[in-house]
């Protein structure tokens, strides 16, 4: 550190705690309380990055969220590195490592800077006009374009940090802890409103916190003294929650807001372990008060982008808050009074202020007079026409402005400097207001967009609402807050406020130079390198709308989202096109206000919490038996149970054979179960299923098919009549929730006259299904007093029973074609019943089987699986299930759709069986079916929906849907694969036990 750029009497930086950090590999020092930007400036480092397109050297320009240039890569660790972080927002911590981006090999010597030399060739949107020849070279061009684009580098390993979300409901949310926000929060909280105040900085107070100037006093003390006391009071208020380091990211409809709280980024690395890094607050506020302040505008003039050119108010913050001099000989360039505050602060800290270049005619507000008294030189009615210095500014060239402000006159003055502060006036931060859907109005006198109309319960106060004078900020904020909250707080009634009143305003969007305009480089968007020339080019080429200009020139689309560039782009467009600013409108401000990590949005919903996992009551048994699981919706279902290193095929073959040869046991607990009661229960079933229900005897079960109103199969399952007005419906696993809500919908909206109640009992019952020729023997061991004779307990019926005193229902139904039972018992006992069945079946080699075997067994019988053999385009007739459509019923859901011109077509795709000529060839599910092989293009007649090798038939079997399939039984077809064609024959869908003998075996 050659120069001492720190002043020592600073109150905000802990100069006793020195912190070491690395920038571009070099070890540097700063103090606790510094940002990376302030620490770099204290080390006289301005050059921190290269611009996106021309790779021009760029320095720190601001001190907060609007920083366009100083964006750095933080951290070296491949999992923890973070690209594109604003140096102005990084609080310095021990061990911080940051580096410049978008430059190679280094920020000081960057090869990409040749682009600057070629810059005449690459105006806005040049890429649309070239790289088209030769056509197939685009891939190569694109490779280099992509390589040169992008800023920082993405991490390449998973993030180790933890993020969190939290909901918060409050009466009043105040966004921004400056002078307006502080007063508003106090008023709200003191009136018993549950209030939340957030600010993105690490401390409240805004810029007033370091405003120690004769021109700005409250009750005869400096405004910084006053605000410190206010902050102290705030922290003692009961109804008030204060969150600092919390940035409002998005303001959605219905006062739903998202705020990101930074919890660990400012801590030393070793203090961060096991702590939440960022928390996203999902805030629902009854009322919202926006007090987000304003941000300073730059000025647009030739070569306004050199390192060392900094917003004037930022220079003030660096000296007054961080105690850092941005230079030793500073010039200022302004169109308004605020640069004079900077001049005075610098002067008070012993920094040489060369001069203030002011585009206005002489003005004599309080603050200007104070500056003049201090002997600060002012160039009135002048402009900077050029700046010099490649990696850091070293001089500026000043000329007088013509009366109309469009050209420069008289002779050029060169002024040496090592820093130039610029101030183009102030832009209210209306981003959140517009995000919330609010409409803006334009105020001509000082060229600002202000909140006008909002649909939501919210107000904007302070400078984000266009109040720039301290006395007005205070008066209007208090008045508006009281009115908005419908309270009458008198805390701020008799404040005596001194404020320097700005008298003259003048604005020139694009400042003239002595050089012809076309040869100047006046930057609008510093990060994306778009210039005033680019905007004018876009307009010349017919891009009239501001959105077109923005997209064509990429102005405002960089990581700062145009915070500094939008107003000037609008101004230049309006001026060039001869339109009024107010009529031009603005581009849309889209959330988030500042970039928001994906991690914070997702919170803890990562890893095991990515999605819900549902388990059956027997789950642990399957885990113990090392079952492989299949995801079925959110359920984990046992897929197959490999033993002795079996692969899936081997396990499934074994399980399938066992189930048919002796006994198998399946966990069917995931099936949806709906308890239906009410005097109209039968009528209800008549309406929702295709078949008839009224005559189903009590104690009997029936299979039902449910359609959508469009006639397509929606769900299926067995429903049991438990008593006169009491049914138990089962649905598919995946369909359970949708079926219940669909049925509730019909009951509540279409058929409110029906006396029917539906209650989900899916989780109440565990379902143990045992099947196979020995299932009866096994069941008789478990429930010895139940008469299992076919006469007493035939297929498709149910019995109430007890297992060790615990009530259960036993259904004799079958999805495998085997003699089988389903025991429904309260879930708490399901595992125990399962184990009992397993023990009782041991002598019969009872074999647990999973979903894969279940699918195989049902396919042998030609039973469909809704969702696998159907795809939302199959009617029951297509499934060759005409028998299930009641001819007698007047109506049921979907009936009318079965009689449309397309659904009555005879040659629709229909469900058939397929056998391969080679019985060992297993078809691929999803494979297509054709009738000819040598034709191009081939007409695809259908596809394979289910396919297995059946160990019980010792051949491969498949179900398929084939156009006109019903009539094609016995026909030869082909399944063309990538490298071969498989010959198949269309068959019946039932492959095994066509006579259903096994059901009663």
């Amino acid at each position, binding site marked *: 550190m050659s120069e001492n750029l720190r002043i020592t009497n600073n109150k905000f930086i802990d100069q006793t705690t020195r912190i070491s950090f690395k920038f571009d590999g070099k070890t540097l020092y700063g103090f606790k309380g510094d940002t990376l930007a302030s620490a770099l400036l204290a080390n006289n480092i301005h050059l921190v990055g290269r611009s996106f397109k021309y790779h021009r050297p760029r320095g720190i320009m601001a001190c907060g969220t609007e920083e366009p240039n100083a964006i750095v890569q933080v951290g070296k660790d491949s999992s923890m590195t973070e690209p594109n972080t604003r140096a102005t927002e990084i609080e310095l911590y021990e061990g911080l490592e940051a580096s410049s981006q978008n430059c190679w090999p280094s920020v000081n010597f960057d090869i990409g800077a040749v682009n600057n030399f070629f810059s005449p060739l690459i105006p806005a949107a040049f890429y649309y006009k070239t790289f088209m020849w030769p056509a197939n070279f685009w891939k190569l061009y694109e490779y280099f374009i992509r390589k040169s684009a992008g800023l920082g580098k993405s991490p390449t390993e998973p993030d180790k940090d*933890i993020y*969190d*979300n*939290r*909901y*918060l*409901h409050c009466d009043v949310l105040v966004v921004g802890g400056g002078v307006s926000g502080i007063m508003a929060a106090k008023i709200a909280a003191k009136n018993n409103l*549950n209030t939340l105040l957030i600010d993105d900085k690490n401390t409240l107070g805004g810029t007033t916190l370091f405003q120690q100037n004769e021109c700005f006093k409250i009750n005869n003390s400096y405004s910084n003294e006053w605000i410190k006391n206010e902050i102290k009071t705030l922290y003692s208020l009961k109804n008030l929650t204060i969150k600092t380091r919390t940035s409002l990211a998005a303001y959605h409809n219905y006062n739903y807001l998202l705020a990101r709280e930074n919890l660990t980024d400012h801590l030393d690395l070793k203090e961060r372990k096991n702590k*939440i890094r960022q928390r996203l607050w*999902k805030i*629902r506020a009854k009322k919202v008060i926006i007090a987000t302040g304003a941000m300073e505008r730059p000025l647009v003039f030739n070569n306004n982008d050199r390192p060392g050119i900094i917003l004037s108010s930022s220079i003030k913050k660096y000296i007054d808050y961080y105690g850092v001099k941005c230079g030793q000989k500073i010039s200022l360039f302004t169109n308004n009074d605020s640069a004079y505050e900077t001049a005075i602060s610098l002067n008070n800290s012993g920094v040489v202020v060369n001069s203030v270049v002011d585009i206005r005619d002489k003005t004599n507000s309080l603050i200007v007079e104070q500056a003049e008294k201090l002997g600060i030189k002012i160039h009135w009615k002048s402009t900077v026409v050029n700046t010099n210095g490649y990696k850091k500014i070293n001089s500026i060239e000043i000329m007088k402005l013509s009366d109309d402000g469009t050209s420069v006159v008289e002779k050029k003055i060169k002024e040496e400097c090592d820093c130039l502060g610029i101030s183009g006036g102030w832009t209210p931060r209306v981003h959140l207001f517009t995000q919330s859907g609010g409409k803006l109005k334009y105020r001509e006198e000082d060229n600002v967009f202000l909140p006008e109309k909002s649909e939501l319960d919210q107000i904007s106060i302070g400078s984000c609402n266009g109040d720039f004078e301290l006395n007005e900020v205070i008066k209007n904020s208090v008045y508006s807050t009281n009115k908005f909250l419908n309270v009458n707080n008198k805390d701020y009634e008799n404040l005596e406020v001194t404020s320097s009143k700005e008298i003259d305003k003048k604005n020139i969007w694009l400042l003239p130079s002595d050089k012809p305009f076309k040869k100047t480089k006046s930057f609008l968007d510093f990060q994306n390198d778009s210039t005033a020339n680019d905007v004018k080019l876009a307009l010349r080429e017919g891009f009239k709308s501001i959105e077109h200009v923005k997209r064509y020139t990429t102005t405002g689309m960089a990581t700062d989202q145009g915070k500094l560039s939008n107003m000037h782009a609008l101004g230049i467009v309006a001026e060039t096109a001869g339109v009024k600013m107010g009529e031009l409108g603005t581009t849309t401000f889209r959330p988030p206000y500042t970039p928001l990590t994906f991690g914070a949005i997702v919170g*803890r*919903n990562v890893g*095991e*919490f990515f999605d*819900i*996992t*549902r*388990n*059956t*009551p027997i*789950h642990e048994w399957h885990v113990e038996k090392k079952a492989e699981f299949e995801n079925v919706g959110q*359920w984990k279902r046992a897929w197959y149970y490999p033993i002795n290193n079996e692969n899936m095929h081997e396990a499934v073959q074994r399980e399938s054979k066992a189930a048919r040869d002796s006994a198998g046991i399946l966990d069917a607990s*995931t099936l949806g179960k709906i*308890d239906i*009661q*009410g*005097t109209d229960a039968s009528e209800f079933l008549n309406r929702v299923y295709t078949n008839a229900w009224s005559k189903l005897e009590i104690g009997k079960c029936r299979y039902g098919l449910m359609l959508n109103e469009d006639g397509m199969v929606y769900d299926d399952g067995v429903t049991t009549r438990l008593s006169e*007005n*009491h049914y138990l419906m089962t649905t598919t696993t995946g369909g359970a929730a949708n079926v219940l809500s669909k049925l509730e919908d019909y009951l509540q909206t279409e058929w409110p006259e029906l*006396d029917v*109640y539906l*209650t*989900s*009992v*899916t*989780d*109440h*019952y565990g379902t143990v299904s045992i099947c196979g020729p020995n299932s009866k023997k096994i069941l008789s061991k478990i429930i010895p007093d139940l008469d299992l004779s076919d006469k007493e307990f035939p297929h498709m019926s149910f019995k109430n029973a007890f*297992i*060790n*005193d*615990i*009530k259960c229902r036993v259904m004799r139904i079958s999805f495998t074609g085997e003699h089988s039972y389903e025991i429904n018992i*309260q*879930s*708490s*006992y*399901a*595992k*125990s*019943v399962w*184990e*009992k069945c397993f023990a009782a079946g041991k002598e019969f080699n009872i074999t647990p089987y999973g979903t894969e075997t279940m699918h195989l067994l049902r396919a042998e019988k030609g039973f469909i699986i809704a969702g696998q053999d159907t795809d939302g385009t199959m009617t029951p007739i297509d499934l060759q299930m005409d028998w299930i459509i009641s001819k007698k019923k007047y109506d049921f859901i979907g009936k009318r759709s079965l009689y449309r011109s397309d659904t009555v077509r005879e040659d629709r795709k229909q469900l058939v069986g397929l056998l391969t000529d080679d019985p060992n060839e297993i078809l691929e599910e999803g494979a297509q079916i054709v009738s000819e092989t040598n034709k191009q293009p081939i007409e695809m007649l259908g596809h394979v929906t289910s396919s297995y090798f059946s160990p019980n038939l010792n051949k491969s079997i498949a179900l398929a849907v084939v156009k006109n399939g019903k009539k094609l039984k016995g026909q030869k077809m082909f399944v063309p694969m990538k490298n071969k064609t498989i010959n198949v024959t269309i068959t019946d869908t039932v492959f095994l036990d066509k006579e259903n003998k096994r059901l009663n075996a």
Partner: protein
Amino acid sequence: MLNFNTPIIDTKEYSEIKISKAEPILKINLRGKNRDFITKIGKELSIITPVDPNTSSSNEKLNLLWLSPDEWLLYSNDIVDLKDANFLEDKLFNEISKVKLGSVTNVSDHWIMINLKGAKIFELLSAGCPFNFNNFKNSKGAVTQTLLNHIDVIIHNKNINDLNLFVRRSFSAHLWSWMNDSAKFI
């Protein structure tokens, strides 16, 4: 004997949060629309049927929660033998469903009840629940059905900082795990 199983087996304590499973608890879902149904329930259970939204009523043994204009959840204060639940179910079924007043469904194992106690339980809930607890937390007996970490739950405010939360059994292990994870960061 059949063994009784629950997906959640322990009690966990964190700073000002204690979460514990309470099972077996009797739970019966009651549905009906007309006055007779409401009167009958009151008479059978010696409890006032809450008809105001988001409320409940309780007696020494039972709690009756309002779930919707035609739906209530009955649950026992204490651990019961599930056979008693069946007994009560049958009784109510005969008195209500059989006589066409409404429906009675045993849901004792459909729901798992988790008890939350402590000063910070609402902070835990706010980690995954969009419901506004500001008034709820001070109204004893209040009931809400909402989502917690995307899972349907019924929450009954038993007492100050003492809640019973009902979650469907198949979701309960996941929710339990989520609650324990979140509690670590409160």
